């Protein structure tokens, strides 16, 4: 009996303790939420009153979440001290806070801070470089990304910069890159992302690198510009290369241009080619397939 009583007392103590821990963590979360609410409200306060508190949060022993919130508030404050603090954290902050500070410079978009990003890129590790590119993207700073794409010696960094330019729909910069650095896989992908059929046409007709030309022809079908089928048919008809023909046909298939494939089918006198074209029409689930089959059975074509 005595032992059972002891056991009950121990169990009750354990239950009370675990409830206490849960309540304590809830209280901590409440405190953190209140601090975050106060920080967010500081966005609407005059900068001379908000800044000292926000800077204290960054320099104090606060959670990373709160400090990241403080960095965002700094990005919203139009004051030289806010910009200077963001740059300071972008240069010497630790881990995620440094990366967040870099991105916040992009949100802030202030010229002086933006100008400091290129040095951070040159001196930074992979994460820093990625954050700098994101900052340029956020600030819609095409020149910043273009500059990196033009000067980097790393293929990976070039690809990353080109992809960012595509996300920014920076058509002019992407054209300049082709002229300056020549065509590449990265550029073709960028042209697809940015729906740049004009550049893809140039590459689709450029026979200097067959592999890239094939990629560009297929990409033209993916982008599916208004008269992409005309270009693809022209390429198909004018080439002697089986690979290029196949790529043009794939472009027509991807772009769902069944009328153009049907026209090629009807114009062809080559049985093997007609069979290939009919197969493509079948894969495309074209309405004209039955018509073509009936014509073939009747010996019309």
């Amino acid at each position, binding site marked *: 009996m005595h032992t059972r009583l002891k056991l009950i007392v121990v169990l009750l103590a354990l239950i009370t303790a675990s409830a206490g821990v849960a309540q304590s963590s809830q209280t901590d979360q409440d405190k953190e939420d209140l*601090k975050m609410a106060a920080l967010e*409200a500081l966005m609407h306060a005059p900068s001379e009153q908000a800044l000292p*508190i926000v800077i204290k949060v960054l320099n104090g022993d606060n959670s990373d979440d709160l400090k990241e919130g403080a960095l965002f508030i700094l990005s919203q404050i139009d004051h030289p001290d806010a910009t200077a603090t963001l740059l300071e954290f972008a240069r010497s902050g630790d881990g995620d806070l440094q990366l967040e500070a870099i991105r916040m410079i992009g949100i802030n978009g202030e010229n002086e801070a933006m100008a400091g990003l290129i040095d951070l890129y040159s001196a930074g590790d992979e994460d820093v470089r990625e954050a700098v590119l994101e900052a340029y993207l956020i600030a819609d700073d095409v020149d910043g990304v273009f500059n990196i794409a033009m000067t980097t010696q790393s293929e990976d960094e070039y690809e990353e910069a080109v992809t960012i330019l595509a996300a920014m729909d920076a058509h002019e910069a992407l054209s300049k890159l082709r002229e300056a650095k020549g065509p590449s896989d990265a550029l073709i992908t960028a042209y697809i992302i940015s729906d740049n059929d004009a550049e893809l046409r140039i590459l689709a007709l450029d026979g200097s690198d067959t592999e890239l030309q094939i990629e560009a022809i297929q990409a033209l079908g993916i982008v599916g510009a208004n008269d992409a089928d005309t270009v693809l048919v022209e390429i198909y008809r004018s080439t002697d290369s089986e690979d290029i023909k196949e790529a043009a046909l794939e472009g027509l298939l991807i772009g769902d241009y069944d009328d153009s494939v049907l026209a090629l089918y009807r114009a062809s006198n080559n049985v093997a080619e007609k069979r290939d074209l009919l197969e493509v029409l079948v894969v495309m689930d074209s309405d004209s397939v039955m018509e073509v089959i009936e014509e073939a059975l009747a010996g019309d074509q």
Partner: protein
Amino acid sequence: MSLLIRMRGLIAFALMIAAGLGNETIASGLIALTEDGWHTWRVPSVEIPGEERIYVLMRSGEPTEIEVPGRWCNTPHDGEVIDLGLVTTDESIDWLQQYIRSRSDLGSDALAAISRHAGDRSLNVLIEIVESDSDHELREEAVFWMVLSESDAAFQYIDRLIMND
């Protein structure tokens, strides 16, 4: 001194105090704010010197809108308004405090209005909510309006709130 003379003295003293308050007497009677339509009253503002004008729309004996024109909103309307004149800070806050737990925006508007009052009372009301109210959303609202009051005392409190564990 006879009782009559002492009474006269007291009346004269009361009149002197009333005269010191200016031509306008402080109104009383917000509690009886039951008539439908827009009402307005003035209180000393948190921005010293100055006054805030509080607007309340009453419907069937209950407020449906509370507005304090200024940085955050315009004068709610330009129609007929029952003007209650200058009201004491305490009376105004007492009245507004009844509605801070209202649903929709009314609660937040009541807190916003409280935050615009001069003196310690308005900040103390907000601090009490922040520190001891069980409604977490209301606590965050109180913090928000405390910051927007832009008073030095409010920023000192926010500083302590954020920096203290």
